[in-house]
């Protein structure tokens, strides 16, 4: 008898969950939405949308989003919840955890404090805020999806299982969160407390299904702090900083990049000179160089600039992306 009563309660609950949304989730949603932003950049065309999502993490305009090709341009535009548009600066990124931090010139913004982020248990109710499919434009609020945490697991239980460079813990979600443009959205608990960054579109190679996942804030917080503290950034072009008399160059290492024709050509390796340090280190054509001695190489010119601050006798550590794998190599220029 009890069992039957509970069944009917479940039935009733499933309806009020919708009907009473106004009294439970509405204030939470209203509270979170001002912190969400829409991001526009490079891309366009099928499967390469030129937009993604992000959220404000400081009153002074730091924005957390996912690291993606959308940011491969000088002109990244951020649109706040109230419709204000800003030209954003990519201040740094950490491809290892798939995040990037942008900065806009604004003040007193509603924001999430990463220190207050929470962890979620499987089965927890969640809200996912993002601009999936670029449904919202201008001052329209981001879309909200409701669901729960299906599992907390590592994305790379087996090598190559997921087409993602990130292999750390992630929340797999019981909600259709990971759609075009949703990457960089915010995952909160039902009280609106920040828990994770919505990931990019990702296919689960283990069973050929699309995977909905988000990366816990605890996994990205250190990177974000390093970026804001000045690390994991492109080498600043600082007139006060002295360049070495004999700097490192790509030619010394035997690296040929693809022709630098865009304002921000991604630093893809076009060719590796035979018997060069690059060849010995195992660098390959089509590798994309992400970091030079912990300096972000956002573009070919960033990379050359970063090298110009390294003395030719010093070690060069490169973090490269090869397919969906991250590879770290160490090189020295040959003796003269």
């Amino acid at each position: 008898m009890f069992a039957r009563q509970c069944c009917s309660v479940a039935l009733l609950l499933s309806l009020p969950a919708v009907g009473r949304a106004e009294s439970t989730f509405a204030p939470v949603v209203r509270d979170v939405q001002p912190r969400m932003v829409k991001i526009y950049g490079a891309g366009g065309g099928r499967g390469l949308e030129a937009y993604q999502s992000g959220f404000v993490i400081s009153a002074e305009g730091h924005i957390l989003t996912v690291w993606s090709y959308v940011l491969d341009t000088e002109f990244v535009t951020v649109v706040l919840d109230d419709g204000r548009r800003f030209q954003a600066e990519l201040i740094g990124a950490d491809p290892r955890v798939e995040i990037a931090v942008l900065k806009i010139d604004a003040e007193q913004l509603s924001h999430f404090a990463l220190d207050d982020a929470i962890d979620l248990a499987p089965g927890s109710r969640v809200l996912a805020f993002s601009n999936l499919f670029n449904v919202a434009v201008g001052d329209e609020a981001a879309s909200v999806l409701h669901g729960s945490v299906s599992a907390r697991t590592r994305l790379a239980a087996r090598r190559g299982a997921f087409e993602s460079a990130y292999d750390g813990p992630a929340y797999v979600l019981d909600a259709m969160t990971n759609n075009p443009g949703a990457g960089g959205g915010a995952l909160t608990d039902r009280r609106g407390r920040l828990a994770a960054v919505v990931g990019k579109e990702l296919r689960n190679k283990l069973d050929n299904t699309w995977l909905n996942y988000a990366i816990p804030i605890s996994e990205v917080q250190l990177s974000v702090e390093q970026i804001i503290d000045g690390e994991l950034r492109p080498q600043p072009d600082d007139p006060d900083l002295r360049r070495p008399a004999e700097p490192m160059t790509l030619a010394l290492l035997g690296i040929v990049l693809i022709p630098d024709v865009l304002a921000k050509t991604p630093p893809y390796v076009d060719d590796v000179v035979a018997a060069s340090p690059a060849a010995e280190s195992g660098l390959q054509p089509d590798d994309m160089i992400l970091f030079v001695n912990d300096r972000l190489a956002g573009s070919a010119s960033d990379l050359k600039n970063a090298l110009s601050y390294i003395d030719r006798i010093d070690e060069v550590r490169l973090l490269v992306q090869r397919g969906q794998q991250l590879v770290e190599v160490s090189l020295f220029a040959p003796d003269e």
Partner: protein
Amino acid sequence: MNDFIRCLLAALLLVGSCDLFHASGEDDLIELEERALQAAVAKVAPSVVRIETFGGLERVGNFVVGDGPTTGLVVSEDGYVISSAFNFVQKPDSILVTVGSGRRAAAEIVARDQSRMLVLLKVNTDEKLVPPVVSPRGELVVGQWTLAVGKTLDPQVPNTSTGILSAVNRIWGKAVQTDAKVSPSNYGGPLIDIQGRVIGVLVPMSPQATSEFAGAEWYDSGIGFAVPLDQINAHLDQMKAGNDLHRGLLGISLPKGSIYSEPPKIAACKIRSPADVAGMKAGDTIVAVAGKEVRTVAQLKHALGPLYGGDEVGITVTRGDERIETKVTLAEKLLAYEHPFLGVLPQRNANGIVVRYVYPDSGGGAAGLQQGDRIVRFAGQEYQDPSALRAEIARREVGGNVGVTVMRGDKSLDLQVVLGTLPNEIEAELPPAHDELPLEGVRNVEVGVTEIKIPEEPNTCVAVVPVDYNPRIEYGLVVYLTAPGTFQREAFADRWREAGEENDLIVIAPQPKDAERWTRTEVDFIKKAVDQGVATYNIDPTRVVVYGHQAGGAMAYLTAFEHRDRFTGVVAVDAGLPLRMQLPDNDPISRLAIYTTLVKSSPIAERVEAGIEAFREMKYPVTVTELGSPRELNAGELAELVRWVDALDRL
């Protein structure tokens, strides 16, 4: 409100949570609910196992097999685990199951359920496994919480998706439906209620198709299915003993028409089928299955759907005013039905059943039947009409011995005929099918090369009707489906004009909307064009043939099998069976003869030959014309084909 909280608390207590807390306000209600759902998953977790497979195919058809872990559900302490057949399509070389202690143990497939697409594994372990608690089917309420549970994403903690129960009697009574996300991430895992009790095992399923993949295209779509665990448990001992389970078959033909309105009146019982053995007869109407009333063919399918071969079921039929209770043991497989053949062609427009032609090698020929004989009695019954006799012959058995009485002149002869099988060869010559019949009254239909117009259809349809069309004559109908991009109206008319006039044939050519291709859905238009032709002209229903060339041939098969009641012949020139087509059983009432060309050197030869073999295995009559190269039929072959059509009213 208090009731909500009380019941959720009760649910929590039932799942064994001692975590009591203050509940005040709506927020806490959601939290209570969240905890109840989490506790439900925790309760079933020990019964949910992770399965890993090694080796096997990388691809099955167009489907790329995932190589990740899959899920199973413990069904008994002694090492038995049930899972979805989808998880084993690649035919793995080895299977490992992670048992409760976290150790991997080897497992093997013990038996398969071919009706519900499940597999039973036996895990080689001494460890006692933990079977789950069953959620009784009678307590299910559409709208209640359900959770789909898998163990694929993490080795320790199950992955879950929350939803509600959407329906309880899906896929012919074999499954319940949920809107929780069901996918390869949890196929084989349980669908549970909020108390952590198992409702069923998650599987891909489709009401139309029956392969391991059927329904997998609906993954994560809000439509997911689970096979009720009580149904699985009911046959577990059989499976443990290593017996595969198959859908239970009765062996009857049902009336044509909508399955949702036609009453299940038996059109024919297959020889030695379970229905035949139980004493059912053509003309009986099934009114109840297992004590439950059925009124339509669809309800009958629902009642029989969950049953397996070997299951015994009480079926009630009515015969006239009599109500008969029968006990039927359903079969896994029916003997393929083969049409018995007396060996004659009937004269058309004759008074009674007059023999037009006797097949020399047939039973009738051997017994001494002659052209001009009038058949008056067959197996002790009088007959005046070829169609009634044809139906009676269909109820007999090949090899059966029947007494046939004929009038030869004014002499009555009693003959004993051994019924044979329908011939595949085409006779070299046939006598005229009817006497000269003068036209009476006026012709009020279009003749010559004309059009059949179907309102609201963009497709067109050309018709070639004999200019001497006579409504007193029954015409054969050939529906010609062109190879896309090759149709020429003039050539088509020239090709068929004479053959039609000499052999009482009307030929229509429905055209694809896009001249370059046929699309599957155009079967409907083709059917409408045929209906229109039948409504306009005097068509003999035993000689309606769909003839397709190349891609038109695939359409011909689709059309013929989708509308068995309409077509008695299908002709495929330079065409194989459509891929993944399931051939329906040969049917006593809806006769279908196959004519196909075969070019040994053609790239589709293998497919054509496989089709021929499949048809022969299912006892369809198949006529094969071998050609040296892939081409349309020439004039001589066409004349032969026309004779083949002319003889489809054979008895």
